[in-house]
């Protein structure tokens, strides 16, 4: 009986680990999808992007 309980307890920890892992990753994935779908995309040119993402051109931003 104790052996059966021990096996079940170990499997409980195994299942809990997989549930924590996949629920955390699913939460992160769906949160990222939600954030991305909630934001409006504005098309800009390659030159504009280079200008924006260069630190040396902070003043121009």
């Amino acid at each position, binding site marked *: 009986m104790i052996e059966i309980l021990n*096996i079940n*307890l*170990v*499997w409980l*920890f*195994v299942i*809990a*680990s*997989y549930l*924590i*892992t996949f629920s*955390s*990753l699913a*939460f*992160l*994935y769906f949160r*990222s*999808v939600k*954030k*991305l779908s909630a*934001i*409006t*995309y*504005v098309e*800009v040119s*390659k030159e504009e*992007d*280079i200008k*924006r*993402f*260069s*630190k*040396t051109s*902070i003043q121009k*931003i």
Partner: protein
Amino acid sequence: MFGLQNPKTFFNFSSSNIFWLKVIFLLTAIVGLFFALIISPKDYLQQDAVRIMYVHVPSSWISLFIFAVIGFSSFLSLIFKIRVFSVYAKSLAPIGLVFAFISLSTGSLWGYPTWGTFWTWDARLTSMMILFFTYVLYVVLWRWIEDYFLAEKITNIIGILGCINLPIIRYSVDWWNTLHQPSSITISSAPTIHASMLFPLLLMFFSFCILSLLIFLLRYKYEIISFRNKFND
């Protein structure tokens, strides 16, 4: 850098590859789970508790690797003044945070049946917890500091300083007497675990890497768009 430091190139790359990354992740995760939970053998000592390894070890590797990338990107952003690297780091941080959380929580669940305790102030566990809180600090500062450029500078410094902890985590099991076992897989020597366990471990690692890349691309797109919108006005 293959043009990927250009946001638009990376943006187009991410848009066209997200679908295939989802497909690869799902396939590898299903096969990986099948091997990890059913096919792979029990450990002679730990019995079925060893199956926690297949999620715990890849999560630990990825959380360490992501912080190394954050540190490198922060360095490039701070020294060479290339803004896009801080956007990379900002997009990666929540992923690393979640993997560090998974590593700590699954490690704790693995510890109880093998060591008889959920937690001990062991060098490996403590240094991993420090990494987790470094991630928390990094993510929280980006949220709390309203001035984008100030937040960028401070988080870059945290990203660089946080890297000091990485070799401590890696070598903690060699430098101190720890309850945590030494590494079974290293780059310099042959793995000490059997192929029947190594295969699902590497498969789960590959699967988590694909998912990390997928989430990173989504978050990177979000950060690029929000940055553009913020400074468009």
